[in-house]
Each structure stands twice: as structure tokens, then as C-alpha cells.
């Protein structure tokens, strides 16, 4: 059987700190379901010596490298990738930022989604992609590692599989598009200048052409977030968008903002977030173990793979806070049945139970987990 072919385009503008790991990460994507060629589109990066370094890096790794003679801006650079995929006969094209880390199983997870009926594009899930982000306290600190990205991807993929979530618009930080759809819908509109909102426009054009715009909750890609756009001087440090480009979207698609609001308030995304976080902490607890901590305030000195369940010492709270690598969520907890609640949720025993603050709940835990409770009192109560 002939494998489908994919042109994986990485758009680059400066970014010495993060581009090379992104390319390395792209090169280790599993090719058992598709033949993947990586194309680096350097949009005339001005950083001294950077293009030479990047070109040499690509040549050494047999990666296609193309530096534009002059700066095109993101929409035109992306269009160059789309057109190259079409003209060179690829079946699919991936458009991606350069401040990302891909999981090895990326394409195997996204291909079954994009091959579902009428799907025109598939965006991966991430930590820093507009509303399609898994909430995390500090993604750069907690998730910026190839191993962690692979683990997270495998975990969410194990739960969501090839589920396709219809969304209002795709994000080109990592989007997979069949080239037949590019031929039908066209490329990015250069009226978006140096970039921002061009993929929203493209997504809405594809919707108007009858295609579905989908998110693959079973694929997780790490995204630094705004790294490439900050480098390009596209947005300032505290800005999140380009108002002129949003105005074009408002003009062309007056209903778009209300459609996004309706999607957010539908609860679909919130449910997916809760399901994903729940599955992540349960998987981590089973794999790495977990600890119960009785205290008013959760401790900050977490080890990387710690799953911590913070229980209130008074024994009255009906929820417990779980934290793992910056992911936080509340889980149901019955203070009358402490052991049952915890065992039902995690389906395994805790590794340790540490008591930092005294209270009625400590006695209940001691009964539920006899012999496991360790005293770790602080010098004074943690809460004022």
C-alpha cells in the first residue's frame, strides 16, 4: 500500500532559541502512516548569521530549506507552503509555527481525523493556542520537554482517539489540510499583511465552501506561544492580536464573534478540558503514583511528576484539588467516605499521605488509609 505524502511546513522568522528543537521534533514524527517531508520556510530572517546557521542545520539533516529573497509576511509565507504542497503533488500539507514541539504520534493521530467526512482542516490541541488550550499554570516551565509532549499526546490520544471536535476556526500554529481542499478554498489572503487572523479568514472560507473545521483533541502539540510573532515584531509584548486584521474579520464575517461566544458557552470545550485534565491526572497517578496532602494551602515545591491531591483539614469540603505539572482541577470528594472517594477516582492507592495542617479530616484519612498517614506539620498553620 502506498503511504499518503505530507509536506510539513515550518514557517520561520528569527527564533534562534526555539526553531532548531522544533525541526528536530518534526524529524522524529512517526512515518508509519504517511511519508513526511519537512520544509523550512525562512521568511528572510534578519538576525545576523541565523539564516546561514539554519540552512546548514537543514542541509545536515536533509530538510528542505528555502529563504525568501525578501520578507513576505506570515500569510504569504504560509501560502508559499500551501502552493508548494499542491504543485509538488503532496496529499496533505501541515502548516506550523516554529515555536512548537511535536509528539512522535502527531500525524498518526491527525490523519484519521482529517479523513473523516467533509473535514477540511484539523488543528492540534495545545497549551497556548487561543481557546483551544489545555489550561496550565506555566506551560513553558512544566511542559517544555519532548518527553512530556510525547507523554501528554499519548495520554490524550488514549482518551479521545480520533475524535473530531467542530470548532469555529482553525489555528495555523499546527494545522493539517488536504491539498485537495487547498485547491478548492485557495490560499491565505495577503490583505492580512504581516499576519494574524489570516487562518481565521481561511477557515471561514473553507466553512462557506462546505468543509468542516475541526480540532483533534487526541493530538497535543506544545506551543511556546507568540514566540514567532514577537520575534517578527508582529505583536508587542502585552498585545495579543492585530486590531486592523480583526476589523477585516468583523467586516467579512459579522457573525463570527457571536459564533465563537456560542461555541464557548455551549460547554463542549469546558467538558473536553475537564475530561482531558481528569484523564491526564489519573494516568499520571497510575504511572507515577500520587500523594494526598492535608493542608489549607497547596505546597509549591512540586517534583516534576508529582500528582498531588490537596484535601482540606476540616474534613467538610466536597471537592479536592489535584495538581500535576501545572494542570489543576477539582475532583469530587465525599468527606464522609474519604478513602472511597479517592480510590474510586484514581483506582489505585496513594503513595503517601502527608499532613501539613491539623483538622477533623486527618482522623478520617487515618481511618481510610491505616498506617499510611505521615505527619509533616509545619511550624505554624499555613493559613492566616
Amino acid at each position, binding site marked *: 500500500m502506498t503511504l499518503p505524502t505530507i509536506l510539513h511546513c515550518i514557517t520561520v522568522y528569527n527564533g534562534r532559541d526555539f526553531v532548531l528543537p522544533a525541526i528536530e521534533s518534526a524529524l522524529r514524527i512517526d512515518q508509519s502512516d504517511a511519508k513526511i517531508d519537512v*520544509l523550512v520556510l525562512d521568511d*528572510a530572517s534578519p538576525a545576523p548569521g541565523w*539564516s*546561514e546557521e539554519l*540552512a*546548514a542545520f*537543514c*542541509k545536515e539533516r536533509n*530538510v*528542505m*530549506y*528555502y*529563504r*525568501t*529573497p*525578501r520578507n*513576505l509576511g506570515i500569510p*504569504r509565507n504560509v*501560502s*508559499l507552503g500551501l*502552493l*508548494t504542497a499542491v*504543485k509538488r503533488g503532496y496529499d496533505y500539507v501541515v502548516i506550523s509555527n516554529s515555536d512548537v514541539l511535536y509528539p512522535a504520534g502527531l500525524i498518526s493521530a491527525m490523519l484519521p481525523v482529517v479523513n473523516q467526512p467533509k473535514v477540511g482542516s484539523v488543528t492540534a490541541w495545545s497549551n497556548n493556542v487561543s481557546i483551544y488550550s489545555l489550561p496550565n499554570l506555566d506551560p513553558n516551565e512544566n511542559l517544555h520537554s519532548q518527553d512530556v509532549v510525547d507523554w501528554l499526546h499519548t495520554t490524550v490520544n488514549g482518551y479521545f482517539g480520533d475524535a473530531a471536535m467542530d470548532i469555529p476556526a482553525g489555528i495555523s500554529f499546527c494545522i493539517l489540510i488536504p491539498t485537495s481542499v487547498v485547491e478548492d478554498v485557495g*490560499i491565505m489572503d*495577503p*490583505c492580512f499583511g504581516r499576519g494574524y487572523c489570516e487562518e481565521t479568514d481561511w477557515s471561514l472560507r473553507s466553512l462557506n465552501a462546505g468543509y468542516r473545521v475541526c480540532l483533534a483533541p487526541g493530538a497535543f502539540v506544545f506551543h511556546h506561544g507568540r514566540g514567532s510573532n514577537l520575534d517578527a515584531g508582529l505583536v508587542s509584548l502585552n498585545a495579543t492580536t492585530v486590531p486592523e486584521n480583526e476589523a477585516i474579520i468583523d467586516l467579512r464575517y459579522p457573525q463570527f464573534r457571536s459564533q465563537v461566544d456560542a461555541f464557548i458557552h455551549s460547554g463542549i470545550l469546558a467538558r473536553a478540558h475537564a475530561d482531558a485534565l481528569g484523564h491526564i491526572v489519573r494516568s499520571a497517578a497510575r504511572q507515577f503514583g500520587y500523594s494526598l496532602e492535608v493542608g489549607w494551602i497547596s505546597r509549591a515545591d512540586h517534583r516534576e511528576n508529582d500528582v498531588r491531591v490537596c484535601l482540606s483539614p476540616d474534613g467538610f469540603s466536597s471537592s479536592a484539588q489535584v495538581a500535576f505539572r501545572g494542570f489543576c482541577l477539582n475532583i469530587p470528594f465525599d468527606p464522609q467516605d474519604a478513602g472511597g472517594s479517592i480510590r474510586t477516582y484514581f483506582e489505585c492507592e496513594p503513595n503517601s499521605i502527608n499532613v501539613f495542617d491539623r483538622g477533623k479530616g486527618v482522623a478520617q484519612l487515618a481511618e481510610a488509609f491505616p498506617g499510611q498517614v505521615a505527619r509533616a506539620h509545619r511550624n505554624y498553620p499555613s493559613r492566616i
Partner: protein
Amino acid sequence: MNDKTDMNTTNLDGISLEQALVDFEVANARVMDLTSRLTSLSRELIQVRTELATVKLRGAAPAGSPAQRSIEIGDMGELARLRDTLSQVRASRLIRVMCMFSGKLRKVLA
């Protein structure tokens, strides 16, 4: 052009150039379309602003005041009175005789 392009390991110049020419044509067409829409909308804007100002003045001026009469010129109020007066002056026998002897008066009443 930039001599750094000889570092490329794949050549996309043709694809890029072809699309640049298409973009150029589209950009030109857009400029003409936008210019046409801009001038048409500018005219509409001036007309709407004039109407708005008239409506505002009409609402603000007391009834029967000179200001309101001046607004009503569009309704031929004050202007019609002026034209009537001028016609009466022109029709006067005395004035017609005077016009025979005064070129300036003929010009004023022309």
C-alpha cells in the same frame, strides 16, 4: 535580490514569483475597487452629514426666527419672498426709465 538565497536546498522561486504576480493583479483590482467605493461612500457621507446638520438646526431654532427662516430656504420661504420683491422692482415704470439711463442699474437688476 539577496545573495543568501544560494543557501536554499530547494528552489521555490518559480512558485513564489507566479503567486506574487497573481497577488499584484489582485492588489491592483482591489485598489481600483476600493477607490471607487471610497469616492461613492464619501459622496454619501457628505450628503448624510448635510441632512443631519439641517435636521439638527431645524430642531434647535425657535419657530419663526430668522435662523429657522434661513433653514426653510430649501422650502422656498425667504427666497421666494426675495424673488417676488425683485420682480416688483423690475416691473416698476420708474425703475425701467432709470434703467434706460444707468448701465449699473441694468446690471444689478439683470
